[in-house]
């Protein structure tokens, strides 16, 4: 099988598994709804700065919960089987693509619920949506590799948080500036720098993941 075929098969497999159990989507949905509701009860109304920060924090924890499962949800033997039939590059790429799809769906759901419950004027809705989309992709690319590392350590969820937070903070800073610009309806040209940095980070992370993953799974 070629690399592309392997990737599509693996992504399809992951999507079917998810579709059957709806494990991630339901769990995250419940998580997002309850957090949004708690925040709404606590704050009632907030200014845009806090609104934005809260949204990203909710999304951050939702994505950590969703993605940390990506390597441990399947048993060791099944993973061994994948490794014997597919190349490590296609495995990591398929995981990244699957997580991107999952995160995009999750963040769209989270955004819709959040903005329904918590009303807040968004200056440039389309641009805010692009920021959310970029954020979902960045979370997916960074966390996939980190979850691969933390899956090897045993106590997965703690290590996931310890390893992922320092790495995601720079991305989060850029994302918050970008989405704040969108909220206030600043001219779009102002934010091209941030978008450039985000795209660059994503490209670099995917490239490094491709290079490093073969070393990670072989043991």
């Amino acid at each position, binding site marked *: 099988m070629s690399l592309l075929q392997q990737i599509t098969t693996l992504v399809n497999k992951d999507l079917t598994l998810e579709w059957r159990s709806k494990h991630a989507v339901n769990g995250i949905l419940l998580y997002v709804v309850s957090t949004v509701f708690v925040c709404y009860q606590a704050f009632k109304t907030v200014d845009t700065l806090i609104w934005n920060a809260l949204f990203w924090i909710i999304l951050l924890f939702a994505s950590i919960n969703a993605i940390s499962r990506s390597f441990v949800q399947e048993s060791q033997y099944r993973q061994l089987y994948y490794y014997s039939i597919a190349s490590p590059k296609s495995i990591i790429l398929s995981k990244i693509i699957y997580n991107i799809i999952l995160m995009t769906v999750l963040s769209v759901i989270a955004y819709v619920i959040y903005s329904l419950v918590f009303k807040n004027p968004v200056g440039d809705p389309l641009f805010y949506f692009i920021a959310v989309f970029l954020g979902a992709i960045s979370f997916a690319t960074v966390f996939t*590799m*980190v979850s691969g*590392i933390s899956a*090897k*350590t*045993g*106590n997965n969820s703690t*290590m996931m948080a*310890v*390893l992922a*937070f*320092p*790495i995601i*903070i*720079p991305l989060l*800073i*850029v994302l918050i*500036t970008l989405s704040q610009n969108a909220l206030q309806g600043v001219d779009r040209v102002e934010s091209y*720098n*941030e978008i450039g*940095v985000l795209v*660059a*980070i994503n490209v*670099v*992370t995917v490239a*490094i*993941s491709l290079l*490093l993953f073969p*070393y*990670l799974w072989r*043991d």
Partner: protein
Amino acid sequence: MRKNWWKILAACLVSASVVAGFMGPVPKLFLLHETIRNVYFHVPMWFAMFTLYAISVVYSVKYLNGGNPKHDIIAVEAVNTGVIFCFLGLLTGMQWANITWGEAWPSDSKTNGSAIATLMYLAYLVLRNTLEEEQKRAKISAVYNIFAFPIMIVLMYILPKMTDSLHPGSGGNSTFGDLDMDNNMRPIFYSAVIGWILTGVWICTLRYRVALLERKANQID
């Protein structure tokens, strides 16, 4: 007999930078006054830290390619030494900022960035502690080290350039080149940087040699 000339050079350069840093001529600058001399002592900490982290990444790559356990020891000892320099840089920066910028922790992108980078490397050390099997630990931590390094570069070089920062060389501020440093300061600054980098590397090699000895002692038992 090992060649020791660079260790003597490190000692001489650092000592010279202390004397010249106090007595050498400095430009009269608004706000900074005499504290501009801190450039000779605070900034070299960061240069030493970066050199050590870069060494660590290089040896992590070497480890993944060759599987030599000595390379892994070099990588971890470089990070250990780098973290010390990072803390020294943070502390001296806080003391300096307290006087010139009015608070010990101004919300400055470079300050926050270096604090987060410290967290990253502490996470690396925590990761090493949780893994017990030696080969697995070496491999996984090498992977994390290489993965985190480019993001740290983004954090400490690119982000401060984009946002406003109090530090020179970022935001709209001038770099070291134009305003802060005149030609009298330059040789002293560079000798301090080289001296501290060499000192950092020296401490790292010491730690590495001690670690090797420990390893040997443990193997015999």
